[in-house]
């Protein structure tokens, strides 16, 4: 008999029916709090692992700079700094998470942010005021996203290639529009977004929170979100279930583009300017954050909360380096190590927890 259920007599006649303990009824979910079960059980556990990584990073921060961490105002300020740093990439990552869950990838996000940023800061656009700038950034983002989606879904291009081409083209267009100059935003409302605080919390953080919540609801509570999982996890099944896979794919890229439009406004406001080279390699940051957050690169699985935690982990690492004044090269070497360690911690964490929970469950049934 298995150790976990070692209650039966070993010499029971072999054909005695029905009384042996149910060896494999383990996953029935009884005996564990409902938080762990159901559709998000694994995701939630994985997110706990990410939180553990975050805690570890903070502890390293405290250990290396006790002087700073002794000052509670500074600590609060630092948290806000980290969140502000995370905000722009965070918004992009929400869109990216949808695309990846839906079985695609979007390498053009950084370029879209740059294009939308440049577009909304041209002299002509700025003349329409803050409303016009926001409108144009969102429209540009959405439009480029739609083109991506068309190429992938109806043009049947591999997402990697389609969005790579768009990345190159959009940066080129942005350079063309801006004539490779950094375009300064002179709109006080736009510039004010980054410096406004509400109840002591920066507006940018509210925007991030709003996008994350909207993303979470969209993914978990709407048909769109649920179908995204289907389209990425088993496109054939999705098609057989009558889902218009192509149209859905199109919408996913459009969504990502829209998020880039929002991010463009945030970034422009932070920099009070825009240029063709801005948001450089955001695609890598966003993909990495999503994957660290548990999104499967092959599609069909992922959580918004995980992606958010992924982004925050990366910005916490950056912050850690800044407060320790590490040189770039040391910083990079350590960063590589931390990323690996983070994933390992999270995996171990995750496995241990699952084991713990399933053991717990077995004994209570």
């Amino acid at each position, binding site marked *: *008999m*298995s150790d976990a*259920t070692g209650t039966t007599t070993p010499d029971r006649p072999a054909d005695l*029916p029905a009384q042996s303990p*149910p*060896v494999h009824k383990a996953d029935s979910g009884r005996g564990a709090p409902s938080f762990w*079960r159901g559709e998000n059980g694994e995701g939630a556990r994985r997110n706990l692992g990410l939180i553990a990584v975050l805690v570890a990073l903070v502890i390293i921060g405290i250990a290396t700079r006790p002087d700073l961490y002794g000052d509670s105002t500074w600590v609060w300020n630092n948290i806000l700094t980290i969140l502000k740093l995370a905000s722009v990439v965070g918004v992009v990552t929400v869109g990216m998470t949808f695309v990846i869950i839906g079985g695609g990838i979007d390498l053009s996000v950084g370029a879209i942010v740059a294009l939308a940023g440049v577009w909304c800061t041209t002299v002509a656009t700025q003349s329409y005021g803050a409303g016009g700038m926001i409108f144009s950034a969102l429209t540009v983002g959405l439009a480029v996203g739609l083109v991506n989606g068309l190429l992938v879904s109806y043009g049947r291009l591999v997402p990697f290639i389609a969005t790579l081409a768009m990345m190159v083209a959009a940066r080129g267009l942005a350079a063309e529009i801006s004539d490779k100059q950094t375009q300064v935003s002179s709109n006080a409302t736009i510039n004010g977004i980054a410096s406004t605080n509400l109840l002591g919390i920066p507006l940018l953080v509210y925007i991030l929170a709003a996008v994350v919540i909207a993303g979470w609801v969209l993914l978990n509570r709407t048909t769109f979100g649920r*179908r995204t999982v289907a389209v990425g996890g*088993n496109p054939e099944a999705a098609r057989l279930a009558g889902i218009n896979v192509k149209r859905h794919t199109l919408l996913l890229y459009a969504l990502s583009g829209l998020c880039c439009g929002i991010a463009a406004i945030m970034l422009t406001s932070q920099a009070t300017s825009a240029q063709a080279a801005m948001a450089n390699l955001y695609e890598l940051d966003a993909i990495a954050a999503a994957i660290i957050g548990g999104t499967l690169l092959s599609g*069909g699985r992922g959580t918004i909360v995980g992606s958010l935690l992924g982004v925050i982990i990366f910005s916490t690492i950056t912050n850690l380096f800044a407060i320790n004044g590490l040189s770039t090269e040391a910083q990079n070497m350590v960063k590589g190590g931390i990323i690996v360690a983070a994933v390992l911690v999270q995996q171990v964490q995750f496995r241990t927890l699952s084991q713990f929970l399933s053991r717990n469950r077995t004994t209570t049934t």
Partner: protein
Amino acid sequence: MSTGAGPEPRRASTEVGSEHVSTGAGPAPRPLVEAPADAVPGDVVLRLTDVVKTFPGVRALDGVQLEVRAGEVHCLLGQNGAGKSTLIKVLAGVHRPDSGQVQWRGEPATFANPQTAMRAGIATIYQELDLVEDLSVAENAFLGHEPRRLGFVRRGQMARRTREILGRLGHPEIPPGRLVRALPAAGKQVVSMARALSHEARLIIMDEPSAVLAHDEVGNLFRIIRELTAQGIAVIYISHRLEEIREIGDRVTVLKDGRTTAANLPARDTPTRDLVSRMTGRTIEYVFPDRPAAEAGGELLRVAGLSRAGEFADVSLSVRAGEIVGIAGLVGSGRSELLETIFGARHADAGTVSVAGRSVRPGSVGAAVRAGMGMAPEERKSQALLLGEPIYRNVTLATFSRYARLGFTDTGRERAEADRIADVLDLRPRDVRRPVRTLSGGNQQKVVVGRWLLGDTRLLLLDEPTRGVDVGARAELYQVIRQLAARGVGVLLVSSEVPEVLGLADRVLVMREGRVVREAPAGELDENTVLDLVMAGSLLEGTPA
């Protein structure tokens, strides 16, 4: 296939039919013969005339006639690759026919996509499971037609309706919120059925639904089918198990090489030999091969006290050279896990495995293969096949390095070996350079099993080797397995078909809920005894806690 319940009908042979088998009464495939007088009365809901569908290089449907009436169970019979799945995919709007007419409820119809077909009232359970692993049971059941308001899923309503349907299906214990990923294979099949029932369908198509179901589950399925037909819903039922067709079917249409060779035969009364000959066009010596008189050789495999928490516990067994040992049990009784653990694909919590007296390093497939083991796993698509690769590379997947010299592969030899296997198993199409993806389900299964017929495997672990394999090929497969045993190979066979275990194996182990509850020579057991032993508890929750 054994049609009776016991081990007696070990030898049921059918005679030759004519190659161009006519329909039930008429000489030509067209016009369709009227249904026999004793057919279930009802309107014709679906009529196919001369439907043709070609894939590059293959004419999968070559003029199919089919007529389905409301309230009947219409069975489709045919060998592997005959075109059954293609036909139902045409009906479901997955494929568009090249030519031919589809009449749906009296009017010509074209189903351009699955959605149109579903809207028209055709629901389908596909041969290959079509579920999304990371969605819940309820979300899968209602995928594509979720109850919703303003784009938001009405989760409460969806869960309630799912629970209702699962209850009707006899599985109230499956929680609608559980991820499908966490369900065993049989549970997934239930979800597939729940999906079909979630539509307001007038015609439900089931493509080999019983392949992954255990005996009691099949009974359950039949109860539901009867309920459906009583409401006037038509059912198209595909299976390779003739006894099922006798039990549930009303009329039978037989396909061969993409053509209707017989239509609207009465399911209960048509002699088996007729059916078989119309399917295969040749004589099938439908037998389990004789057991050899000679005693089996020395002990080859010894498993002692093998356990894995949550799956099976304290399993001890042995297989001797030249012996076929069968394991019977319900789906979900842990047999697959046992086999995988013996094979080193899973790590045992306790216990040992040894081959020919030498213990095998646990948790290492490589060690098991080096010790002479081979395993044909249960789920062909996820566990066994490289779908995009040619057949021969799939057949030689476990052995290609044996044909290699200094690391360089010998493709010619591989192809020759694969050709040999293809001949033995009657693979269709025979060209071993085709990608496995384009094979029908049963032919894919043959590739999986064929893989281990090559090379010098001493101990063969077969997990549901005949799942989805047609009558003719099945007989061939039995012969091959027996021949291997005669050459001294030990075979450990898992099958959910009790007659198969009893007919093929020398010795039988019965498993229930992860434990071996009985071990006896096959001759000492009959089907009812085994079923009694096996039945206890149901799919998920089982015995009351």
